[in-house]
């Protein structure tokens, strides 16, 4: 199993001159520790206009800082929004290549398309179009990296022949992923040879079905890049302490406030009737699964909170479903003290991580119904 941390850069009100700087500083401290402890990835999201929920519009800049302060952890630029109103695919390819160079070849590129009207509407983007623009972007980006000069005549994007520079350090190019939230995106991922970056901690049987579909289809994929990324990751909340009650209480506070903050955003599906978003994306799914402050005792199955034994047991279940990685949300809105987050990561790395790092690669065995 691989493990990562997922950085949202959420900034609670009141916003002072220092609050955003402090959140960024705390996140960087978590990343440095994750690097020391042997976590495999740090993923930084791209979000716009999401008050308090995420002040992370420039994850490539944040990840550059991460890369400069670490030596081993891979930097996950994701989810980068493949929406032309946000940015051109040229700029994605260029900036990602710079990040790959500065990180010494540690870039992972996660692709996606945004799920909120708060963001899409802010840029004047049409939610009906985002699946199509994502598809064209993921086809051109690896070509931009690999071809000395590149030209394209497409539906949403065209350019005359130019050298898109610099080129990434990793050859033929960095691994590519896609965020899987809407039903069927796991099929898109598999057919294009992209890693499956799960963002919804759904039920075991639902997840198992998605993973099995992905694994079966990717064997016959037509990759958009020069190689196939077969990894399947999921997301979860991390709260690990010797005192299991404390860990669950703290973890549920993070999960609850995550749900509450996410719920204030307007999903694309909620305000615009469209086939393009068959589910409401990451936010409502996590909201549903993690409960609300009104029923804070509720948690979803397989939540990675509790003693090291509890957390290991939960991870074992996800491993049996067929995932080969979990990316953890350990902090949100600075709701738990920074020291708690760091201690939780340390304990996880000492007690839990070795159980999964030392084991040979396992075949999924399934866990049955939820």
């Amino acid at each position, binding site marked *: 199993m691989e493990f990562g941390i997922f950085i949202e850069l959420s900034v*609670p*009100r009141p916003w002072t001159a220092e609050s955003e700087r402090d959140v960024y500083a705390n996140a960087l401290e978590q990343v440095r520790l994750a690097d020391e402890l042997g976590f495999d990835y740090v993923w930084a999201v791209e979000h716009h*206009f*999401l*008050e*308090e929920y995420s002040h992370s519009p420039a994850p490539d800049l944040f990840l550059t800082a991460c890369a400069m302060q670490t030596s081993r952890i891979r930097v996950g630029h994701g989810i980068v929004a493949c929406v032309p109103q946000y940015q051109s695919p040229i700029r994605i390819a260029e900036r990602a290549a710079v990040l790959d160079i500065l990180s010494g070849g540690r870039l992972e590129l996660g692709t996606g398309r945004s799920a909120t*009207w*708060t963001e899409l*509407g802010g840029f004047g983007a049409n939610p009906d179009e985002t699946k199509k623009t994502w598809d064209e972007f993921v086809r051109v980006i690896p070509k931009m990296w690999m071809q000395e000069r590149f030209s394209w005549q497409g539906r949403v994007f065209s350019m005359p022949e130019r050298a898109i520079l610099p080129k990434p350090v990793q050859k033929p190019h960095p691994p590519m992923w896609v965020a899987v939230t809407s039903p069927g995106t796991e099929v898109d991922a598999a057919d294009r040879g992209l890693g499956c970056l799960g963002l919804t901690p759904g039920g075991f049987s639902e997840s198992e079905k998605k993973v099995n579909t992905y694994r079966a289809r990717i064997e016959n994929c037509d990759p958009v890049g020069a190689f196939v990324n077969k990894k399947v990751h999921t997301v979860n909340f991390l709260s690990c302490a010797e005192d299991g009650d404390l860990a669950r209480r703290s973890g549920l506070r993070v999960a609850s*406030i995550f*749900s*509450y*903050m*996410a*719920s*204030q*955003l*307007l999903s694309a*599906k*909620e*305000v*615009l*009737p*469209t*086939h393009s978003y068959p589910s409401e994306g990451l936010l409502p799914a996590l*909201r549903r699964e993690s409960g*609300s*402050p*009104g029923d804070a005792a509720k948690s979803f199955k397989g939540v990675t909170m509790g003693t090291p034994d509890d957390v290991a047991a939960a991870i074992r279940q996800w491993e049996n479903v067929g995932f080969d990685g979990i990316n953890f949300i350990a902090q949100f*809105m600075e709701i738990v003290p920074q020291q708690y987050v760091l201690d939780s990561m340390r304990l996880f790395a000492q007690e839990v991580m070795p159980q999964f790092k030392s084991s040979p690669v396992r075949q999924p065995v399934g866990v049955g119904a939820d």
Partner: protein
Amino acid sequence: MPLAGSLDIRPLLEAAPTVTLADRELHVDDVDILQALFEIRVPDREAIVPPALNPTIPPVVTFLAYRAKDSAFGPFSLVQVRVTARAGVRPRAFLVSARCDNPALAEELSGSWGFRIDPGEVHLARFHDRVECRVLDDRRPILDLALIDPEPITGQDIQYPPGMHLARVQDAQGLRPRLVQVDTEYQFRRADRGRPQLGSFDAAAWGDDRLVLAEPVSASFSACDMTITAVRYVCNPDIPASEGTENVGNP
């Protein structure tokens, strides 16, 4: 922390309907519904919903116009003006006010579900190129909007979140200010969507002159059967819905 509503409900309570909770449902066959959404520009977005609710980011006004050729109260047309909100983590819409051309139905909606409702002349007309809605108050237009270029979709693509209606609820404990959650079920026969187009909106005539429409978001039309179900939940308007919601439905 999540933004919390700060609307002062006291001035609204005097004119708020009195609701007697009962196991009533209202079923209507063959209803046409036009929904149009617009982002709004308000200096204080928290102040447009009561403390029980949370505003959305961004705040959005929803117009819901209904036309039924018949019902238990006869034919009617009805328009609601609502503001998107959350009760805890759940999508809701806070009713600003409504207009209806059928007094008997208006009385039922007010007394059973807490509709803040005034008389109005409502015109809803569906054409192949547009769906139009006009509301007149004493022959003065207070709303004029349209859906342009309808294209077919499925009913499952449309969302009408439950309404939250400020009312004085009569129960065993007396008359208490409450938000009445109004749930409606739909069986869709057809659905379209298109571009919203606003002719005019007199926000003051609908009870909140702070609602300045900014960006058009979407418009949809549906033909369906609908049932306004018996009230299951009410909540204290002064405290967060996650703490102040009471189940008043039948077990």
